[in-house]
């Protein structure tokens, strides 16, 4: 590195030539160790600051892709977190994210390479949000916050650099989705009328956790004028039941309510369980609607939805039971409810997720 004597201001600090910085950054790009954006150079001394944030051994395996015979250790996770631009104090959240993703299980099943083009999405709860500056409010799915941006990116860079999931090679996504750059949000617990998500599943109030989801789309719901909870819940249910989302017989979803919508429900006396139940019961399609979209039956082999006239078709569960209205969800447990975003408009979203279509979500404590 070339150093110069500064004329004033930043007294005594060595200055680095831009050519040197560019040479380092291009080195990473030339090796393909990137999602396409510039990455942060990493040194052993910088890595040690990440290791100082965890009690785990650098060689401990956090998650495996056995079908690729590849493992992500604490050390590899730290390298990619640093490359993603994480500060060392974010690293416990990254470690918890891998624990949650491992618990969720899709990482080991090849879904991360699938044509469907899903992305891992992280939801962070508890005191760690404020500690590291995770955004839970305005533009929660968007840009502008280093912790959100880089923690999600750390997962993607690891997928690329550790597991080798590069597009056009082992990543077969037909289109992918924008969350494949980064997808880490926090729950707006302070402006939620209800307990936070993890406390529904046995975690203490205020516990710092990461919940792992596998998502395909974030579909927005505009409902600024209604004050009737049944109308809003019907809008949400109709969004969940859209035929385009029906890949399998049933699907799952996470409803991310803006605080205004959450308070509309709570003000009318609804709990999260009430909303889940209503949405389960009303997220349905008629047999005719499914047939018109070519999704009125299942593949006998894969149980994916297809047209009744397809040579591999078999009746779906609703047909076997003689039902004319077909639920998009297996049960109310297939719906998660969180609160996220600013309290400034009647706007919410449905995060279209891949499983679990019942049972608790994958939540790991931040250590």
């Amino acid at each position: 590195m070339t150093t110069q004597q500064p004329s004033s201001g930043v007294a005594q600090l060595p200055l680095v030539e831009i050519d040197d910085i560019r040479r380092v950054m291009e080195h990473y790009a030339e090796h393909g160790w990137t999602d396409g954006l510039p990455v942060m150079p990493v040194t052993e001394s910088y890595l040690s600051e990440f290791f100082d944030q965890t009690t785990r051994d650098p060689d401990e395996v956090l998650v495996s892709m056995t079908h690729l015979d590849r493992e992500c250790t604490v050390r590899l996770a730290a390298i990619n977190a640093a490359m993603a631009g994480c500060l060392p104090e974010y690293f416990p959240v990254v470690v918890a994210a891998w624990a949650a993703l491992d618990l969720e299980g899709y990482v080991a099943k090849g879904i991360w390479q699938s044509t469907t083009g899903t992305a891992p999405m992280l939801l962070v709860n508890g005191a760690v949000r404020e500690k590291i500056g995770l955004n839970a409010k305005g533009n929660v799915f968007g840009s502008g916050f280093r912790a959100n941006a880089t923690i999600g990116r750390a997962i993607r860079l690891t997928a690329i650099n550790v597991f080798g999931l590069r597009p056009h090679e082992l990543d077969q996504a037909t289109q992918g989705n924008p969350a494949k750059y980064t997808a880490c949000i926090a729950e707006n617990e302070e402006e939620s009328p209800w307990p936070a998500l993890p406390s529904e599943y046995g975690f203490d109030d205020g516990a710092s956790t990461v919940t792992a989801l596998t998502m395909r789309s974030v579909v927005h719901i505009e409902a600024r004028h209604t004050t009737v909870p049944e109308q809003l819940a019907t809008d949400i249910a109709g969004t969940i039941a859209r035929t385009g989302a029906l890949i399998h017989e049933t699907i799952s979803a996470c409803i991310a309510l803006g605080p205004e919508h959450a308070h509309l429900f709570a003000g009318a006396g609804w709990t999260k369980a009430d909303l889940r139940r209503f949405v389960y019961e009303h997220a349905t399609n008629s047999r005719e609607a499914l047939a018109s979209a070519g999704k009125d039956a299942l593949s006998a082999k894969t149980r994916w939805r297809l047209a009744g006239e397809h040579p591999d078709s078999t009746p779906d569960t609703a047909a076997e039971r003689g039902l004319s209205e077909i639920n998009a969800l297996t049960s109310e447990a297939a719906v998660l409810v969180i609160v996220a975003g600013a309290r400034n408009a009647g706007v919410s979203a449905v995060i279209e997720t891949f499983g679990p279509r019942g049972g608790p979500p994958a939540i790991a404590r931040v250590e």
Partner: protein
Amino acid sequence: MADGILLERAGVPAISICTDAFQVTAKAMADVYGRPEFEFVVIPHPIASLGVAEIEANVREVIPEVLRILEGS
């Protein structure tokens, strides 16, 4: 691709078949498994939207290739 390689490794003759859209990924998986020379059969894309007759026609087309690879393994 992985299944074909693992079956062959277990001593079971196997053929991996993919559509041309997955040819690059199939080769990448063969490399991951340390078998860059692993032969597989490529058929035209797509499959999911074809009828029985079209599927059968594609199968008949590649049977000689399947037999050639099996006999050579």
